């Protein structure tokens, strides 16, 4: 019964999105069925497609979890984009200077640098919310653009000559491709950071189900006043929640920097931070839901490339937006539901 109610909004969103997509495809003179067949064949239809879907799903799990953790604490983190940019840049920086270190040291060190960078950016918004009452939505948006300006001005100084990327990371900091174990995925960029993303999902699930910290975050999310009355330091929890949210976003560099291109590249994210909001909302801010929602959007993202010859691939962005519209409208009190309460019937 509970599961049925959890699945209803996504299902309804899916139907609406299909209807909207079909209308758009018909409008440009295509055949919806043929497009869907192409989309399925180009994603889950072969080893390479599956690998690419997993590659695109990996960062979405992380940004989705980042947004979800903040939502559980009653905070909206729209700044995953800026946080993951700083994180990936630091991951690349540490990775490039790790030549003398063995992989067991180099990889964790690069990841810690990324998480710290993301946490730092998010913590600014967290602190301003906690102690000055400044709206974290506006501040995380502002921070996204401050990061963008800083990367253009300062980050670019560390780029290779005539390039828009940093120096390559050391061999010892590189994550193996999944295709080195599963030859069926040959040619795809899926790499070991998928395991990291799943591990973070398990960690978040454990955090909220079993730990005192998770309980405090949820308590503050449900009612700051009640949490304060129960002796919880609301500002400290809010700061910590944002920092944790930013740290998770800061790990995104693992996929692109440590596992794929082996350097930080300007604009590599392509809006993953914003899609993370969609992932968290569709996944109802629950770790398992987030992983499944990330798979949906990962499939769409790869599917866009598969259908591009027939309909413009941007149809996928429209679809993503329509799915969010439908889910948000189907849950009038998204925020309340996200933090664990059912709406009044």
């Amino acid at each position, binding site marked *: 019964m509970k599961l049925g109610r959890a699945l209803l909004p996504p299902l309804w969103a899916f139907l609406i999105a299909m209807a909207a997509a079909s209308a758009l495809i018909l409008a440009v003179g295509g055949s919806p069925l043929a497009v869907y067949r192409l989309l399925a064949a180009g994603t889950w239809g072969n080893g390479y497609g599956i690998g690419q879907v997993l590659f695109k799903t990996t960062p979405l799990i992380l940004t989705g979890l980042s947004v979800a953790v903040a939502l559980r604490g009653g905070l909206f983190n729209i700044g995953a984009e800026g946080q993951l940019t700083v994180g990936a840049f630091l991951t690349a920086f540490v990775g490039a200077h790790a030549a003398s270190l063995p992989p067991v040291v180099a990889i964790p060190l690069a990841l810690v640098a990324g998480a710290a960078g993301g946490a730092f950016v998010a913590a600014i918004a967290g602190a301003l919310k906690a102690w000055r009452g400044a709206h974290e939505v506006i501040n995380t948006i502002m921070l996204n653009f401050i990061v*963008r300006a800083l990367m253009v001005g300062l980050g670019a100084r560390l780029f290779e000559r005539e390039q828009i990327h940093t120096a390559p990371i050391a061999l010892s900091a590189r994550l193996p491709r999944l295709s080195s174990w599963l030859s069926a995925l040959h040619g795809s960029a899926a790499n070991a950071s998928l395991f990291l993303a799943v591990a973070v999902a398990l960690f978040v699930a454990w955090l909220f189900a079993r730990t005192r910290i998770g309980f405090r975050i949820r308590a503050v999310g449900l009612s700051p006043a009640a949490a304060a009355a129960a002796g919880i330091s609301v500002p400290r929890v809010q700061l910590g929640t944002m920092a944790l949210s930013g740290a998770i976003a800061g790990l995104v560099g693992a996929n692109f920097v440590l596992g794929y291109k082996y350097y930080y590249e300007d604009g590599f994210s392509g809006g993953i931070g914003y899609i993370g909001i969609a992932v968290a909302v569709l996944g109802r801010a629950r770790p398992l839901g987030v992983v499944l929602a990330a798979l949906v959007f990962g499939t769409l993202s790869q599917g866009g490339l598969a259908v591009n010859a027939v309909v413009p691939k941007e149809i996928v962005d429209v679809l993503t937006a329509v799915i969010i519209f439908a889910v948000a409208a189907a849950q009038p009190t998204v925020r309340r539901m996200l933090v664990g309460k059912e709406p009044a019937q």
Partner: protein
Amino acid sequence: MIATLLSLGFFAAVVRITVPYALAALGGTLSERSGVINIALEGLLLFGAFSSTIGAWFGHGPVAGVLGGVLGGAALGALYALLVVTLKGDQIVCGVALNLFADGITRFLLKATFDSSSNSPRIDAWGHIGTTLILVTVALVALFHVVLYWTPFGLRLRAVGEHPEAAASLGVHPARIRWAALVLAGAVAGLGGAWLAADQRQFVAGMSNGRGYIALAAMIFGKWRPAWAAAACLLFGLAEALQIVLQASGVGVPAWAVQMLPYVLTMITLAGFIGRAQAPRALGKSD
């Protein structure tokens, strides 16, 4: 260099940068004073730029273009109102999604209409609409101030933004007021988009390029007041134009520092370090 700063060209550059900020910020002010967060300004600008391009292209003239921008913005504003007022969807989630939607649908339609993934063809039908639009913008700033503070509609709108239940008990329909505010906000932001398209004489994918967020910043820096928000836009426009002049003359003010300025000022304002920035009290609450 002083001569450059006093020249007509510099003044024109400031105005060129300011106009789209100001129009989007006016839209933001109206919608937020009615109690609805509007982080969709970016999408409204972008969609307005595209729909005005369609208007100017198929209507063969600047009037059709401007009309296209205004109507397109209003339509997207209506979609936003449907989602957050009627269906009571979360305003931030829907706002983010609307920006994504605008980016996707304009690129999709750009390919479908002009068979290009980057830009529309050059549209000379825009003519010399610029001066008129500048005057219209100035008039709109004054009009928004008058409407918001001196008319019954403005009073109701502000009442709904502060305390919708109290307003409702006096016979005002919060939902109707918010619908009106959001559609008008869309229309005026759409006009800002038309400026972008007319100024460049074509549509370029993603051409709003963060301007909607600068407008959002200006709105907060101006503390949700139309004239002050417009003044903040002018300040940001002045800083940008100044940076370009300084860079050309070799004085070392880095571009990134100027780019950061609006956002840093906004964060400082929001944190209450420059007077008190009091948001409309019912902002973001769906009931």
